[in-house]
C-alpha cells in the first residue's frame, strides 16, 4: 500500500492586530509600536524556523458611533518601513506586508516591493487587500472613488500592472563592467506601457529585477470574486478558519479553481489565521482560554460588539444584564466604521433573535453571550494536543499551514515556538533548518526563471 506523503506544514507569525483578539490589559503586554516589539516577534518566529512574518494594515483609525474606537489597541507602523528594518535583524524569515490596491499607485507599490525584496535578499511578500470605502478614502488624494463592485477589477489590474513593472527588467541587464564601461546591457531596460480602464502609464521602471523576480503574492478576501482573484493570481490565500469541515470545503473550492488558469494545486497555498492558548494539560489550557476570552471581551467591548450588530446605541444597557429587547436597525451600518466586523452579520434581526434565545437558554449576560458567540481560540490544549491538531488539519487538507496570531505582544509566540514547534519537527512535518534563502523556497514555490514573465500563472 502506498501512502500519501505527509505534507510539510507552513507557519507564519502575524503581528497582533488592532482588534479585540489582542489583549493589551495583561501585565505581560508590551508596546505595539516600539521597534523592539517587532524585533522580538520576528526573531522568535525565525528561531522557530517559521516561513514568514505577517503584517496587516488599515489606513484609517476605526470609529464607533462617530468617534475613534478606543477599546482595542490603536496605532501601527508603516508596512514597508518596518519590514525593511526587520530585514536588518533577521536572515531567512519571509516578510509579508499587507498593501491596499485602492489607495496606492502601481509604480510606487512595485518599486517598494522590489526594494524590499532586494533589501531582504528575496524575502518579500505582498498581501493584496481591496478595502475601498469612502471613509478610508478621506485620507487620500483621490478620496473614496471606487464602487464596491469594482474593487477586484482594480485589484486585478493593479496587481497585473505591478507584475509588468517588476518584469520590465529580465535580470541580466546590469553588467557593471568597469573595464568596458558598460553598466547596462540594454538601453531599454525597464521599459513599460500599460493602458486600461484604471491605469494609463508608461516609461521606464527604475528598480532592477529583485531576487525573487517579484514579491510572493497573498490574497485576503473570502467572497467568490476574491477566491477567483486568488486562484488566478496569488501564491497564497489568507483566510479565516472555522471548523475542520469548513476548512476542507474552502480548501477544495479554491484549489479546484486553479486548473482553469493552468495552475497546479501546490501553486496556491491556503493559510488561515489561527489563535492559540497552550497549557500543561488540556484542562489547564481550556481554563486559561476562558480567562483570555474574558480579557478580550470586557463589558464595554461586549456592548460595543452588540451595537455593531444592532446598528444602534445600546449604552443604556448593562453588559452584565440581559440582552436588549429592542430590535436591530436594518440598513447601512452607521455605528461602526473601518471595522471588518460591521459587515459580518448579514441578517442582523435574525442574528439578534438567535442570540436572545441562546442567552435565555443558557442564562447568559451580554458579556457572556459575546464571549460565547465571537470567535474563540482556534487551538486550545497542551503542546501535544495542539501539534496533533495542526498536523491533522494540514494532512486532511483543511489548510497548508497557519498564520498564527498571538494575543500578547510581543512574547505571545514564545511558548508556541518553545513547545509546539519541536513536536511538529519530531513528527517530521516541519523543517528543522531553513533549506533555502528566499520566501519562495520556504513555501515550496519554484523559483521564477529570470527573464520570464512574473505572473502567477505560468
Amino acid at each position: 500500500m502506498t501512502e500519501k506523503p505527509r505534507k510539510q506544514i507552513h507557519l507564519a507569525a502575524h503581528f497582533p492586530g488592532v482588534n479585540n483578539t489582542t489583549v493589551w490589559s495583561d501585565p505581560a503586554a508590551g508596546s505595539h509600536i516600539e521597534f523592539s516589539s517587532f524585533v522580538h516577534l520576528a526573531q522568535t518566529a525565525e528561531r522557530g524556523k517559521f516561513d514568514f512574518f505577517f503584517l496587516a494594515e488599515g489606513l484609517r483609525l476605526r470609529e464607533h458611533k462617530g468617534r475613534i474606537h478606543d477599546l482595542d489597541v490603536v496605532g501601527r507602523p508603516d508596512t514597508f518601513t518596518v519590514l525593511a528594518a526587520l530585514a536588518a535583524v533577521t536572515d531567512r524569515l519571509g516578510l509579508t506586508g499587507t498593501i491596499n490596491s485602492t489607495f496606492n499607485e502601481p509604480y510606487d507599490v512595485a518599486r517598494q516591493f522590489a526594494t524590499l525584496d532586494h533589501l531582504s535578499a528575496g524575502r518579500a511578500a505582498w498581501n493584496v487587500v481591496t478595502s475601498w470605502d469612502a471613509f478610508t478614502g478621506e485620507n487620500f488624494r483621490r478620496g473614496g472613488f471606487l464602487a464596491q463592485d469594482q474593487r477586484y477589477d482594480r485589484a486585478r489590474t493593479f496587481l497585473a500592472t505591478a507584475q509588468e513593472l517588476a518584469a520590465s527588467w529580465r535580470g541580466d541587464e546590469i553588467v557593471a563592467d568597469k573595464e568596458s564601461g558598460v553598466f547596462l546591457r540594454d538601453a531599454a531596460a525597464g521599459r513599460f506601457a500599460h493602458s486600461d480602464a484604471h491605469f494609463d502609464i508608461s516609461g521606464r521602471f527604475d528598480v532592477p529585477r529583485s531576487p525573487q523576480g517579484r514579491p510572493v503574492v497573498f490574497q485576503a478576501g473570502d467572497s467568490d470574486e476574491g477566491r477567483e482573484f486568488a486562484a488566478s493570481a496569488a501564491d497564497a490565500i489568507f483566510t479565516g478558519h472555522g471548523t475542520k469541515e469548513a476548512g476542507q470545503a474552502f480548501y477544495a473550492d479554491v484549489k479546484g479553481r486553479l486548473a482553469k488558469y493552468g495552475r497546479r494545486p501546490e501553486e496556491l497555498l491556503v493559510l488561515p489565521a489561527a489563535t492559540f492558548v497552550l497549557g500543561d494539560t488540556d484542562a489547564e489550557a481550556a481554563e486559561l482560554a476562558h480567562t483570555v476570552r474574558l480579557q478580550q471581551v470586557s463589558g464595554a467591548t461586549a456592548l460595543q460588539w452588540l451595537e455593531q450588530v444592532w446598528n444602534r446605541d445600546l449604552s443604556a444597557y448593562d453588559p452584565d444584564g440581559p440582552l436588549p429587547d429592542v430590535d436591530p436597525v436594518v440598513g447601512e451600518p452607521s455605528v461602526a466604521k473601518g471595522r471588518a466586523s460591521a459587515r459580518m452579520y448579514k441578517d442582523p434581526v435574525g442574528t439578534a433573535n438567535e442570540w436572545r434565545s441562546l442567552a435565555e437558554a443558557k442564562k447568559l449576560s451580554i458579556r457572556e453571550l459575546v464571549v460565547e458567540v465571537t470567535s474563540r481560540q482556534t487551538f486550545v490544549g497542551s503542546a501535544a494536543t495542539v501539534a496533533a491538531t495542526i498536523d491533522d488539519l494540514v494532512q486532511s487538507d483543511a489548510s497548508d499551514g497557519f498564520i498564527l496570531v498571538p494575543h500578547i505582544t510581543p512574547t505571545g509566540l514564545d511558548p508556541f515556538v518553545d513547545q509546539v514547534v519541536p513536536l511538529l519537527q519530531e513528527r517530521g512535518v516541519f523543517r528543522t533548518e531553513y533549506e533555502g534563502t528566499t520566501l519562495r523556497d520556504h513555501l515550496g514555490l519554484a523559483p521564477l526563471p529570470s527573464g520570464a514573465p512574473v505572473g502567477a500563472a505560468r
Partner: protein
Amino acid sequence: MPEPLHLAVALDGAGWHPAAWREPDARPADLFTAGYWVDLVREAERGLLDLVTLEDALSLQSDDPWTPDERTDRVRGRLDAVQVAARVAPLTRGIGLVPTAVVTHTEPFHLSKALATLDYVSTGRAGVRVKVSSSAAEYAHFGRREAVAFDRSSYDSPEVQRVVRELFDEAADWVEVVRRLWDSWEDDAEIRDVATGRFVDREKLHYVDFTGPHFSVRGPSITPRPPQGQPIVTALAHATVPYDLVARSADLGFVTPRDAADAAAIVGEIRGLQQQAGRAEETVHVFGDLVVVLDDDPAAAAARLRRLDDVAGSEYSSDARVFTGSAVQLADLLEEWTAAGLTGFRLRPATLPHDLLQVTGRLVPELQRRGLFRTEYEATTLREQLGLPRPANRYATV
C-alpha cells in the same frame, strides 16, 4: 571656542561623478544590496557625521536633469530611499537618516507614517528631504496629472515660473499635512486604562482636516507620534521659490553657493523669508552643498578629477560647487563659508568610498583639531544633534 559646525554626507549610487562606478574601489555590482548601504552609512557614522541624505526619484537617473536619456555607461536604477534608511537604521546608533521623498506624486498620509516609522526604527534619527517632481517621465509613471513640459531654456518664462510656484506650494501643503499627522496623536494618547477598558484617550487623537487644491486629508495618522515628535524636514534650494519653502516649512535647507559672498547672500535671503513667514525665532539650518574630490595631495585630487572626466567623456558640472583639493584646504573653505552664515555643510562625495573615507578619515580629524567638530555623539536624537528642541504638539491643550 567657535560654533561647532554640522556635517552631512549625501549618498547617491557610486558617488556623484558619473564615472565614479568605474573607480578601482567602487562596488557597482553591489548597489542593490543592503550591505552596500550599511557599509557606507556605518563609515559616515564612524566619522560622527550629523546625518546622511539618500538621493531618490521616481524615475531612472539621467545625465540631463530635464529629460530621460538612454545611456548605458552610467549607473542606472535605484532602491526606495526611505526603505534603505530603515534597513540601515537598526545597524547604526548615532547618525541621522534623511531619505529623499518626492512629494508631487505621493500620498502625504503614506509618507507621514513611513517617516514616523523610520523615526521609531532609528529611535529618533529620522528626517526627510522633500523634492518636487518636474520631469515629464515621472508624471507618465503615475498617469494622474499632466506635466507642464519645460527645460533650462524656458525655465525663466512667466508660465513656467507659475508652474514652479504651484509645485512648491503643493510641497508646502504636503509638509503641512505630514507635520499635522505627526502631531495628530498627543504623546500621552495611549493610556491603557484597565478600569474603563480604554486603550487610548481619544481626546488626545486629532483629525487634521486639511483641505487644499491637491489633496484633502482627514486623519488622524494610524501611527502614533514618533520619538522626535517631528522628524526633521529638509529641502534642497537654488532660488527664491524653494528658499521660501525652506523658510516656511523646513528645519534645514541645503543650498549651493559659488563662494562665501554668495553664501552670505543666500543665507540673508532665507533669513528674510523666514521672518516674513513668522519663523524668525525658530532655528532653521542652512547647509552649503559641495561636491568633493579629496586627496592628501591637492594635485592628486585634481588629477583624479581629470581622469574621471576623461572616463566620463565630458567635464563634470554640478548645481553645487565642485571642490578639488585636500581635506585641510576644504576645512579652510568650510571655516570661511561658516563665517558667511552657513550653519553646516552637506558634502557630496564624487566617488565612493574614496571621498567618503577622506571626509571621515581626514576632514573630520582636521575639524576636530580646530575645535570645530564633535569628538563623540552626545545627542540621542537627530533634532538634539542639530540643536533643535523637541516641538510642542500643535493640538495639545495642556
